[in-house]
């Protein structure tokens, strides 16, 4: 009897969270919305695993909504590019939902928890839609649902600090401009080709082999819109305040997954559709994305050093890390794209773990966590602090952590492309990451104040440690991540060479 559902698995992973979110919105209880969310996400994980099984057999699933064939109807596409991301997404969302319960209870009014989890599932469903969709207008809809849901979630942080409202408002304005730019681009593309389906778009674009100004304008609009949403430097300004004033659980979800899914779509658009104009693509990658990535890496890291507020520090380091990912994607070859995907996976785990740990500190400290307030936390809360230490070392890229694997592959990709200047810059920026992370470590373990260790909440440190252990495991046994990334790169780059 389950077969009926399993056939529709590609749709259900998106629709299920959206449906349940409507159901739990008005539950006044403080525990039931969470239980419903956990059950939903367990089912979600089950469906994702089923998709993985199907993909390993067939290699490609195209799900047509209402059985309308692709050029006319909306379709979802699952192949080697996104199955790894889908799996990571499913697992990480489950862990962070587990983590979020105690955090939400502390940071927002418990009567609002139904609404909070409703928005949470809305964000999860729509972000998942971004991963799977094969239709450029459908993407805009998912983009906006996820943006509106996450803006509302960020605004929930106003109970702690009213600046959350300003952060949410700025995100709304800037995000909406980005999304509208994207729609203008879609309009140009549709006017020239009469299609919205990504596979069909490639075929239709081929007839304008020498390229048309309208198409280039449309492509540029789409890319700029997505760059705003993915917080690629210099259009990242909405991100640091949004991440730092959001409730901690929300920062975890957004930092780990929201920008990553959009980056994924960005690279898919570049290498699957716009590849048809190699000269335009290499112009964009070499003269726009590549320099911007280098600037993002350098400036993000330097600003992070001067931050006093830990969540802000992490947010600026996210800008730099997004820079690493786009730097890898701008390399135009297999090793580059693969290392970009490796870093998407690893950075999701690292930043997720860091935001989880800092979020827990914020609750224990009952205020915003600044460098000063961390004094002696290493002795006071050893379990969480140790997890934070490991995640931080991974962010820097020490061996035995997955951050090292990322850096290794990135260096390798840069080396094969003979970009020695970028190698130097990435190395310097990694060294600078030591500076800002050392400031945290110094406060936590080497300040004069000594505390006795206090009891920590297992419901909170368990998810943090799940993430931390996965960081170490993937640092030593990195085959799954490497394989998924190579698979993604295989699919994207094979189109490039044809």
């Amino acid at each position: 009897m389950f077969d009926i559902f399993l056939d529709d698995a590609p749709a259900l992973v998106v629709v299920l969270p959206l449906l349940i979110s409507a159901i739990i919105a008005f539950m006044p209880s403080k525990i039931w919305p969470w239980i419903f969310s956990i059950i939903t996400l367990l089912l979600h994980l089950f469906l994702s695993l089923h998709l993985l099984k199907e993909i390993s057999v067939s290699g490609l699933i195209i799900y047509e909504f209402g059985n309308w064939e692709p050029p006319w109807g909306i379709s979802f596409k699952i192949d080697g590019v996104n199955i790894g991301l889908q799996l990571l997404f499913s697992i990480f969302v489950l862990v962070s939902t587990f983590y979020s319960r105690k955090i939400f209870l502390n940071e927002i009014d418990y009567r609002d928890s139904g609404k909070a989890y409703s928005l949470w599932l809305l964000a999860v469903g729509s972000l998942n839609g971004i991963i799977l969709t094969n239709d450029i207008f459908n993407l805009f809809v998912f983009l906006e649902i996820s943006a509106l849901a996450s803006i509302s979630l960020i605004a929930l942080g106003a109970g702690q600090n009213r600046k959350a409202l300003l952060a949410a408002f700025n995100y709304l304005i800037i995000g909406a401009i980005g999304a509208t730019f994207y729609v203008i681009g879609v309009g140009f593309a549709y006017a020239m080709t009469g299609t919205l389906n990504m596979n069909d778009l490639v075929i239709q674009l081929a007839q304008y082999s020498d390229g048309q100004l309208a198409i280039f304008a449309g492509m540029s609009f789409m890319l700029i819109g997505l760059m705003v949403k993915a917080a690629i430097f210099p259009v990242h300004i909405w991100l640091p305040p949004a991440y730092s004033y959001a409730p901690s659980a929300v920062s975890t979800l957004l930092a780990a997954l929201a920008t990553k899914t959009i980056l994924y779509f960005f690279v898919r658009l570049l290498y699957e559709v716009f590849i048809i104009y190699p000269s335009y693509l290499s112009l964009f990658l070499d003269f726009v994305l590549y320099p911007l990535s280098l600037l993002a890496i350098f400036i993000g890291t330097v600003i992070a050093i001067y931050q006093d507020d830990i969540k802000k520090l992490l947010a600026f380091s996210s800008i730099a890390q997004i820079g690493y990912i786009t730097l890898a994607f701008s390399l135009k070859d297999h090793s580059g794209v693969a290392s970009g995907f490796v870093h998407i996976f690893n950075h999701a785990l690292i930043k997720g773990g860091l935001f989880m740990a800092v979020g827990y500190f914020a609750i224990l400290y009952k205020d915003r966590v600044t460098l000063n307030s961390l004094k002696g936390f290493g002795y006071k809360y050893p379990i969480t602090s140790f997890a934070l230490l490991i995640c931080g070392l991974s962010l820097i890229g020490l061996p035995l952590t997955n951050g090292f694997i990322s850096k290794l592959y990135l260096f390798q990709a840069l080396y094969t492309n003979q970009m020695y200047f970028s190698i130097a810059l990435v190395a310097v920026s990694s060294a600078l990451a030591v500076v800002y992370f050392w400031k945290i470590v110094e406060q936590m373990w080497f300040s004069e104040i000594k505390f006795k260790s206090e009891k920590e909440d297992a419901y909170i440190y368990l998810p943090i440690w799940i993430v931390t252990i996965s960081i170490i495991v993937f640092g030593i046994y990195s085959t799954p991540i490497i394989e998924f990334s190579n698979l993604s790169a295989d699919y994207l780059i094979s189109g490039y060479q044809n």
Partner: protein
Amino acid sequence: MVGGLFIIITSQNYLKKVVGLAIFQTAVFVFFVSLAKVLDGTAPILTKMANAYSNPLPHVLILTAIVVGVATSALGLALVLQIYKNYETIEEKEIESLELKSDK
């Protein structure tokens, strides 16, 4: 389109920014609908009188986009209301000076 963007960038008042955003989005919607026009085309209803039909798909897309736009504006206005409740002003400069004071 440019007018809406201009309002968003230049105005100091949050409410005006939301209005500017709405104008900007509406302009894009009109752009989409104008794409659909086919010369001599009529509304896409099956009759013997018509010899060409306008393309209905952009209208459908824009219907979706309008819903998104409404939700964006509504959320923006709700946030402006909350900002007013917390700061008792919605002028960007005044809020900045308030925040500077509270940081000291």
